[in-house]
């Protein structure tokens, strides 16, 4: 018994070490954001800021285009999520409730498209969007993000719809509901948590996206927050690390909040359908 306990204590120690190492970068980001410049630039690091300051957050917020680019990101994400959920839900119903010729082809399309590396598509999408004068517009970026969000959402929602016990639908049908009635009263409320989880995933991937936004948006006032953040390092040798970490913290907050909200569904959602990293 005592060796078993000793072993458990040993494993727990390893677990705590893993926690410390893996969380350290996040801790370091937040801790730096609140430090004074003296503490940041010192050779010996200060682990926890002794006199926390909000100065870096003020500096970051006052940088050109911060609010504009946050607004751009929000617009892009909101439109992408709304369109993707509406269209993907219909297709997911078709996939999970009907058998039809071409179903397999559609599945191949949905899975295959998710496998395409984003980098491989920058050239054609750039050229085509340039053709239709949609370079340097949010519309272009929204269209591109839809190609990523749609297949993933179809696949994930399909998993959620399949998870609904079919007896419930049948009960509604027996009660004399029309198919649409059964859909609206039974299926929709039950699949709502799935819709929420999937839209949060779509939100996160769109918010985090970098390469397409970098390629398609070259005007400071048109960019998304990730592109804004990527230019922060600048060309000067002196980096304002405090403001950079404050800006990084601000960029990460929406994602962290949403991630915590759907934490329980993460493992299921991701194995049911694959998300692009």
């Amino acid at each position, binding site marked *: 018994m005592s060796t078993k306990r000793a072993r458990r204590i040993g494993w727990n120690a390893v677990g705590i070490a893993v926690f410390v190492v893996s969380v350290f*970068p996040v801790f370091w980001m937040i801790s730096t954001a609140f430090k004074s410049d003296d503490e940041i630039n010192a050779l010996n690091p200060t682990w926890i800021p002794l006199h926390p300051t909000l100065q870096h957050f003020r500096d970051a917020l006052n940088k050109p285009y911060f609010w504009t680019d946050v607004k751009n990101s929000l617009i892009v994400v909101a439109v992408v999520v709304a369109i993707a959920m509406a269209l993907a839900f219909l297709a997911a119903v078709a996939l999970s409730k009907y058998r039809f010729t071409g179903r397999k082809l559609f599945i191949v399309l949905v899975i295959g498209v998710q496998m395409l590396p984003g980098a491989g598509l920058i050239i054609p999408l750039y050229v085509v969007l340039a053709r239709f004068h949609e370079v340097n517009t949010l519309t272009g970026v929204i269209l591109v993000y839809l190609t990523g969000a749609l297949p993933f959402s179809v696949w994930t929602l399909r998993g959620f719809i399949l998870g609904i016990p079919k007896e419930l639908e049948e009960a509604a049908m027996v009660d004399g509901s029309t198919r649409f009635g059964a859909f609206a009263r039974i299926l929709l409320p039950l699949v709502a948590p799935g819709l929420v989880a999937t839209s949060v995933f779509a939100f996160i991937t769109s918010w985090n996206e970098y390469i397409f936004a970098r390629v398609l948006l070259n005007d400071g006032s048109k960019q998304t927050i990730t592109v804004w953040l990527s230019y922060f390092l600048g060309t000067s040798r002196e980096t304002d690390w405090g403001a950079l970490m404050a800006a990084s913290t601000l960029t990460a907050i929406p994602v962290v909040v949403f991630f915590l909200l759907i934490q329980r569904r993460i493992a299921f959602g991701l194995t049911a359908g694959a998300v692009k990293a």
Partner: protein
Amino acid sequence: MASAAETAPKWSGRRSTVRRVGRDAVPYALVAPVVAVMGAILGYPVYRLVRISLERYGLTELIEHHGVYIGLHNFGSVLHDPVFWQTLLRTVVFAVANVALTMVIGTLLALLLLRISTWVRLLVTSGLVLVWSMPPVVAVQVWNWMTNVQNGVLNYILTELHVGNFFQHNWYTTTFSQLSMVTTLIVWGALPFVVITVYAALSQVPRELVEAAEIDGARSWRVFKDVTMPVITPVLLILTSLSILWDFGVFTQPYLLIGQPHITTGNYLMGIYLFEQGYVSANFGRGAAISILMLLIVAAMSVVYVRRMIRIGEVT
């Protein structure tokens, strides 16, 4: 996941032919919007991709919306470019190293989660979710800060731990150390997904089976190999193929961590090679040829994964 195969007929209980035609059209109507959007914003560009790859297509042609047909010249020039082959080799080695590290460490950590007390497990998993939620661009900036030459905290910690003298050590002087830093960043970011998914798979392993094997005197390695592995192998396969695809096409982390001014032909990865030679130098024809080669390589690699997912889609 429940099966919907039996559900389908319940949704279509009536017999008349007119209704039948109408009913048969329903799934197509449901799928149509997604197909239309995907066709317009992906199908057409992919068609253009093939055409542009056979054309001379630079800035002039971009403005005129018209390329000059030059046959397979772009492909010939890419395939005769030693940089392409070096980049391909480097990317394959890089991806294999990243995937191997991610999968091995990820599986070990998932096994660790089984052995620790509940409160430690909660601590570790919430830490992992926090790491998972870091946007890649944010993670890159944090890495930049932690590994900067002047007073990066990594150098301080390594020196304090007596690993060696890392005072103002520059982590970005050689291609190897640059890519090693990119690897730590990518593995750190990829681990949460792998650990949590493998852990979920591990909880499917029947407890009694493991205990029975242990009572029979089987060593822990044998228990793992003969009892645990068969259950989690499908999940490991999916995770491995996904990781290969992601790490092969990775762009954001290497591009931003190494930093645009320090990107050279000597440290290209596939995604960066394509970006620099196609987009930055505005040689879209050549870029299209590289894209097609890259897409073909990825398609070949993803066959296993796609097949498996299709089977999942068919069963249900």
